[in-house]
Structures are given as C-alpha cells and as structure tokens.
C-alpha cells in the first residue's frame, strides 16, 4: 500500500506479541498526558515532598549538619515506621489528586464517540483494555507513593549503619498498602470515567466520590450515635490499614478510641469498593449496549 501506488496491499510483516498490546494503550495515554505542561508541573510538584523527606534523612544521619542546626538526634530526628507512615499518608493524598486529574481522561474519550468497538473488534479483550488503562494510573501513582518510599527506605539504610535489617519488614507494608490504595483509586476513577462520558463531569464525580461518602458516613454516625459510618470514609479506612500495618502509635493514627472499625472490616470495605468498581467497568465497557425488553 505504498503511497505512490495508491493501492491496497495486505500486511504480511511481523506482529507484536499479543500479551504486550495492552501497553499500547498505556504508551499513548502517557504521550497525551505529558503533552500538557500543567500536568508535568503538577507531577513534578507531587515529587517535591520526597525531596523534603530525603533532606530529613540526610540531616538525621549527618552530625555536622545537626550541630550546625543545633538539633539533637534523639529529640526529633528519628527515621522509623512513623516516619514512613507519615510519608505514605501524605503522598496518598497527592496520589488521590493525581488520580482525579488523570483517571477521567482515560476511558471517557473512548466512549464519547463510540471508539470502544474498534478496540474490541481487534484481538484485544476488555480485560486487556482495563489493564492498559490501569497501568497508566499504576505507574503514575507508584511514582509518588511506594517508589519514593522505597528510595527513602534504602537511603536511610545506606546512611545509617545497622538500620536496614531490623527495619526490612517495612518494605512489605510500604509496597502492599500503596498497592491497595493505588488499586482502589484507579478502579474508582476508571469506573467513574466509564460511567460519565464527559471528562469534566467524570473529574468532578471522581473527586466527590471520596468526599461525599465520607460526609454521609459522618452524618450517619452523628444521627445513629455509631462509628460504622466511617466505613464510607475511604481515606480513613486506608489510614487505619496503613497505621495497623506499620504498628503505629495512637498519635499517628494507630488503634484508639476514635478508630473503632476493626481492621478486617476496613479490608472488607476496600475489597468491596474494588469489586463494585470492577462490576461497573464490566457493565459499561461493552462493544454494544443491549436494551432489555
């Protein structure tokens, strides 16, 4: 089908492996995202707190700087599980904002003008489609959560001799808790994006999907004099889980009179939210809508 010949020729060249084709979606989405200067600035800003936390580790392990700043190590500068808990929790909010920005741009443009049948008429499944879109959020949110957390962890391990092995157990909650938060954020924003075809509406709904249920939960608690309304407060659920995983003290969100929801219930609620989001995606991501009746 050379241009100058202007005739149709079938393609007989090599094909990419079928398992790798979900990555095409990811690559194109990244290309579109990083065309926006505003997004690039926001993404860089989301990485800035990591530099602050890294500076903290540097100061905590450098006696000269401590002397210059007149800080005593034992007073405030400790790098332990609370440090990573605070880091992950603050970064989880940045991940949330990043997710509100990126998530709604992923699915809704494909649905607005009916492009989905074009994807699914190729050797490409709905699961691969979702995987390709999830990978976008997975990579972006990982860049602001567990990846910098691990960098900080190993930075501390490198600077403080004898610190790494006693604290190695923290690698698991760092990765695992971040993974759960990223998965929940991604699935919620993708399902909202699949439900709301207009991007701006999807962005708004993604944002309020974390705020409104928490408010409803608080109202429920106030009226019913209970604490089970906290199950609708997703950031609170995540905080409970991560605090338990890091064996946090009460002042850092550990078990207290305020956090009465049992941890298994927190887990069950997060899993339920993820399953519900998958159900929505399964309902909406179809090549053809079938009208019943």
């Amino acid at each position: 089908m050379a241009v100058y010949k202007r005739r149709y020729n079938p393609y007989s060249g090599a094909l990419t492996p079928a398992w790798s084709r979900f990555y095409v979606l990811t690559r194109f989405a990244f290309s579109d995202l990083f065309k926006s200067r505003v997004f690039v600035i926001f993404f860089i800003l989301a990485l800035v707190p990591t530099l602050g936390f890294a500076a903290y580790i540097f100061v905590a392990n450098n006696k000269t700087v401590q002397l210059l700043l007149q800080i005593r190590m034992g007073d405030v500068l400790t790098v332990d599980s609370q440090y990573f808990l605070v880091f992950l929790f603050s970064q989880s909010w940045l991940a949330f904002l990043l997710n509100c920005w990126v998530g709604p741009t992923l699915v809704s443009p494909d649905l607005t003008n009916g492009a989905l049948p074009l994807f699914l008429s190729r050797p490409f499944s709905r699961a691969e489609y979702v995987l390709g879109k999830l990978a976008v959020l997975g990579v972006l949110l990982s860049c602001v959560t567990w990846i910098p957390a691990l960098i900080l962890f190993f930075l501390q391990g490198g600077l403080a001799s004898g610190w790494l092995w006693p604290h190695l157990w923290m690698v698991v909650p760092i990765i695992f808790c971040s993974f759960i938060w990223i998965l929940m954020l991604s699935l919620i924003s993708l399902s909202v994006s699949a439900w709301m075809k207009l991007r701006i509406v999807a962005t708004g709904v993604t944002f309020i999907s974390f705020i409104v249920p928490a408010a409803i939960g608080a109202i429920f608690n106030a009226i019913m004099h209970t604490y089970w309304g906290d199950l609708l407060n997703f950031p609170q659920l995540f905080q409970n889980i991560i605090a338990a995983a890091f064996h946090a003290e009460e002042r850092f969100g550990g078990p207290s009179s305020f956090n009465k929801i049992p941890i298994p219930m927190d887990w069950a609620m997060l899993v339920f939210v993820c399953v519900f989001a998958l159900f929505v995606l399964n309902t909406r991501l179809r090549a053809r809508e079938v009208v019943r009746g």
Partner: protein
Amino acid sequence: MPATPATPQPTIELDGLEVQLGGRTILQGLTGSLKTRAIGLLGPNGAGKSTLINTILGFHQPAKGSVRVLGLDSHTQGKALRALVGYMPENDAFISKMSGVRFVRYMAEIAGLPPSQAMERAHEAFVYVGLGEARYRPVGTYSLGMKQLAKLAQAIAHGPKVLILDEPTNGLDPPARKRLIELIREIREAGDICLLLSSHLLRDVEETCDEVLILRNGRIASICNLAEERRANRKFLELETSGAEATFTAALESLGCECAVFAHGRMKIVMPENIEIREVFKVAADRGVQIRRMNHRRDSLETIFLNAMEQTGAADGRL
C-alpha cells in the same frame, strides 16, 4: 464487475445460529454457507444485519448454533478470528481529539503492528482513502464523509484478511458514496481479502458483492450468488416490429438468439451473453424491419430482493 474467485473453504458458515438480546430473539436458526470473497448482507432495518456482524466479531454470544468465518468459530476462536478482521462500524467510532493519522496508527498497533510499521501504514491508508491532506487534523473536526473514510482507513491499515463494513455509505452525498464504493471495489479486487458488507441500499451491495445474504425478521430470506445469477441470467428482449418476416427471425437465430413470434409483429427474444442489442438493430436494418418498441430487462438484485421479501417459504430460516 469481474467476480472474485470463490475461496476453497466457505467464507461464512452459519449453523443454526440463534442470537438473543435483552430477552428477545434477534437471529433465528440461520443456516447457510457463503463461499465467495465478497458477501453482501441485505435486509430492511431491524432484520438483524448488524447483530450478525456483532456476533461474528464476538460482541454477542450465540444462544444456539455457531457462525464460522474462514473456518474460525466466532465464539470459541474469537480472538484468532478478530486477528483477521478489519471492522468499519455503522455509527461514529473515533477519538475526537486525536489526529486522523495518530488514531489510525493507534488502532493498527492494537491490532499488533509494530509502532514503525503502524505509523507507515497509517499514512498510507490515509492517503489511499483520499484523506492525505487532512491526516493531521483532529478526527472530531472531520465532516461525515471524512469520518467514514477515516473509519475505512483504520479498518484496512493493519491489512486484514476479512473486511467487515457495516452500512459504509450511510449519510454520504452521491459523490462521496461513489468514491467510497470505488474504494471498496478496489480493495476487493486488489488484495486477497474477503469482504462482508452490510447495507440496506441494494446498489451498494450490487456494485461490490458477488453473493448476497438477505435477512428478514432475523431469518434468512435468501442466499443468492450474484455472480452465478449474472452468468446464468440471459437477456430478454420484447420487440414490437413492423415488416418482420421469417428471414428476420432466422437471422436472429443464426446469431444464437431464441425467438418466439406472436401476433401483430410482437416477438420475444432470448439473447446469449455475447450478443449486443445493436446487432439486433443491424439485422433489422439489413432486412428493412422497423422496430417500434423494445423492452430490455434483466433480473436485478432488486427483483431478487423483492422476491425474497415476498416469499413465505423462508419462514423456517432455510432455503
């Protein structure tokens, strides 16, 4: 239009196919075999044409029976089948903010082409369909005709073996329709490609297809091999003449025509394929015969379609 050769295995095999959507039976007991490389799907609105295409693509699951394309079952071998397919849907299907060429490249990469090949073929496909100048514009800014061509470009960019076109000329003005039909015929004749074209416009199917599957109320009303019909179809002439004698009839018969003479100079002539009408005029002129009226007809797809619609014997889905 030269007929494309039939494939050794049936292009489409329907085996008691039944499809139910939303509790309603849309396709009922479709059974048949279509062997040529250019197949038209005809039927009035709601006959089940798009449902059949969607079932072939694996968008709908058969409730009973099966449909096989080039020997691949649409349900059990769906992925392998879709690897062979290029699909141009009936409705809008594009990503509005993407440039045309990037959109086609994207679709080609999803189909499995490496990035460099996908980019090259996206450009080629755009130039081929006549949108070369508009390829860097966002697809959302295209006119309806350009969007149709962009859909065709994405359907052919990855070089499919089966091209499925669902109402490709919908909403096009006559010149755009003519251009699209020409393109479809070129694609059909240029490459080793099977064509499945769904339309409710008889002319579209007649101009591009060799075989027609006519659907009515989710059942097969007729399967007709247009190429064979064209070959078997003999030309009929009804003449009203003045001064015709036995020598005129004998001269026509010597050309290979079959003649039946009636009262008042009326004649019916069955002409062989190789005889043109002007030769009848020449014979008449040589013998001083006046031809006062001539009625020339051959069975068209319209006749076949109307007959199929009127038939009641097709109610069980088989012919």
